[in-house]
């Protein structure tokens, strides 16, 4: 059992967490100018690369989303922080 750091609750079991998305995506706007391809890219496309990744996760038990930096091969977590504008 791996443990992840929730910026709000501290170290908790991995089963309490859920992967949400890769970090760094921004919703394309304004909606009326967004093409199907841009919207599909925002919704579906990921890098999914081996190595260092910056991701948005949710701690299911407290409901907070936060940023986690980890290695997708070794599973080593190097950082976990609140989303910008959310004090932990």
């Amino acid at each position, binding site marked *: *059992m*791996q443990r992840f750091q929730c910026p709000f609750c501290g170290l908790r*079991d*991995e*089963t309490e967490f*859920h*992967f949400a998305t890769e970090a760094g995506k921004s919703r394309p706007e304004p909606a009326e100018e967004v093409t*199907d*391809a841009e919207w*599909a*890219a925002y*919704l*579906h*496309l*990921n*890098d*999914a*690369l*081996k*190595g260092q*990744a910056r*991701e948005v996760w949710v701690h299911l038990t407290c409901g907070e989303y936060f940023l986690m930096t980890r290695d*997708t*091969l*070794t*599973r080593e977590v190097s950082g976990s922080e609140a989303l910008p504008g959310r004090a932990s």
Partner: protein
Amino acid sequence: MTRRYSALSLFREGLGGHRGWQPAWRKADPRPAYDAIIVGGGGHGLATAYYLAKNHGITRVAVLERGWVGGGNTGRNTTVVRSNYFYPESVALYDLALRLYEGLSRELNYNIMLSQRGMLIAAHTPMQMEICTRIANAMQLNGVDGALMSAEEAMRRVPLLNRSEDARYRCMGGIWQGRAGVARHDAVAWAYARAASGLGIDIIENCAVTDLLIEGGRVTGVETSRGTIRAERVGLAAAGATPGLAARAGVTLPIHTYALQAFVSEPVKPCLDTVLLYLGTGTYVSQSDKGELVVGGGLDRVPTHGQRGNLPAQETVLSGLLEMFPAFGQLKLLRQWAGVVDVVPDSSPVIGPTAVEGLYLNCGWGTGGFKAIPAGGWLLAHLLARGEHHEISRPFGLDRFVTGRLIDEAAGSGIAH
């Protein structure tokens, strides 16, 4: 020297002390250029090579494998073959694979040990039985064998099933597909490798692709750990390694990679002669010819590229197994392992062209690639040879994520991711 396998050749080689057997395929060294390169020497890549030669007469082909043939997900799955899907597009795809599997031992002159022992997807509530009825009806409308099975029939076929009145997930019956079953996974890879090699295709192991060469928007070759190899057509059949390869060509995919685990128990006498999947636990199990119980379940929930599983997923799968078969609690596990699977949002594969001319994909199979090997190979070969979709692969192109015409088998047939 024996080229064709048969009972007679086995007898004849036996007389000579079995000294006349030759390696099943040539260990090829890379040539500077090919008509087509296939990246990935698993079942899909090797089948693609075979069908390129057999269906399209293209034999100047290399299969590049970073490790050894069949050492990725082809050697890590639970060997189940089936076509019990919901949507017509999926049934057309997976049943093409099953039909090809049915003739494969004969066609490739290699015993893939296909055993069509049937598969039961077990339901536990009246609501789930209604969904099973819907899927069985869809299967019949789509022209494959599917039927509803009663609880009594399920208990008769699988006597060790949990019969306790207070079982958390009691089997109420479910969907039966009699043509489903298992096949020897390594044999499938080896059979295609041998057949492709026999038709002149180069199978190059220990050859990692490190870069894709793109000139003027089209692919012109690959950079590998064994030098540059040129080709105007490149097919990627690399499962979890696909995102990293496609990124070298500037192609981003709708893929997340997860570890999928499997387990085998110590061998025991025959006690389960079908494939069983419980909807309630997500665990599935069959018994191998050696007597081991082969067990699988859902994905690990942490995206990863590491080919090893985590403990919470093990606990989920194995507690599911004990719910189905309390008697199996006495068994010891022999092995546990994981493969990295490429999961897309609608749980259907991606087969088709990319924005880079000459670069084609066969990926996104997620947890279900093994059963589809013959079809994946058949369809990627068609794309590489003709430059356009086969009728069966057309719905599975990348464009479906833009048009929104997804083929959502997670919703359709309730597959595990």
